[in-house]
């Protein structure tokens, strides 16, 4: 198990692990709502509901019961998004909008990469966009005024 932490862009975290089962088996656990509900759950954060439509552009959503963890004042967690890459059993990526983010409309991206290995699968999960804002990215190509718009939006909300 290794968690490499933040890249130089302060923007993504990468976690990797070996699992002693073939990629097909791991991919099923990543896309089957019944299985997701089981392994995504923890005593601190019991999963109440996990839904996923496992195909490109398919939506997913999960929510938890009130647990013992509080993030940004939130203790019942809800997260949703849609699948942006679906290549079984190698790649699964989805957008990740979470109610415990400072800005729950912030687009972040979770990408799973599975590589067959002797005795199993190398699993790599990358969560990116953690310091990013969609408007800022768009504005980078369009110049400064949009950034001011974004700042204005922050201030006025």
């Amino acid at each position, binding site marked *: *198990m290794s*968690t490499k*932490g*933040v890249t*130089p*862009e*302060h*923007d993504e*975290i990468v*976690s*990797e*692990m*070996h*699992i*002693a*089962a*073939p990629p097909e*088996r*791991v991919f099923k*656990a*990543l896309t089957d709502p019944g*299985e997701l509900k*089981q*392994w*995504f*759950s*923890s005593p601190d954060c019991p999963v109440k509901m996990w839904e996923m439509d496992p195909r490109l552009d398919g939506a997913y959503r999960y929510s938890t019961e009130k647990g013992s963890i509080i*993030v940004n004042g939130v203790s019942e967690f809800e997260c949703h998004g849609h699948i942006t890459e679906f290549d079984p059993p190698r790649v699964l990526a989805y957008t990740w909008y979470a109610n415990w983010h*400072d*800005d729950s409309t912030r687009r972040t991206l979770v990408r799973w990469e599975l590589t067959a290995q002797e005795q199993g699968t190398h*699993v790599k*999960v990358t*969560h990116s966009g*953690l*310091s*990013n*804002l969609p408007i*800022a*990215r768009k504005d*980078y190509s369009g110049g*400064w005024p949009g*950034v*001011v718009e*974004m*700042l*204005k939006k*922050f*201030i006025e909300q």
Partner: protein
Amino acid sequence: MRERSVTHSAATPGREITFQALADPTRRAVLDLLRRGSQPAGQIASAFPVSRPAISKHLRLLRRAHLVREHREGRHRVYQLNPEPLRAVDSWIEQYRVFWASSLNNLKAFVEAEHAREREAARKQRKKS
């Protein structure tokens, strides 16, 4: 409108303005540059292929987010890195480090147990037939 944004920026929550400042690749590159030491605005501008006014605006935003400090040395405005606000960002990202590490542990335990159970079931099935 820009000036109004400047006046009201104090009302923006600290971490949001930090994220916003970090969301731009040029501004991140400016911070990386200042890690090597304080620099006058002119020197910072010459390190980037964008216009001088554009760099000034980036620096202003970084200053508003308290990621850089500015002081005058003669005719120069000198910029210095202030990494303090990055702590708030780091503690936020830290939650995800823990989250994915523990999720991967759960996934591993679940898949390996299921896989072993399925293999065992298949083995028994083969024996029977």
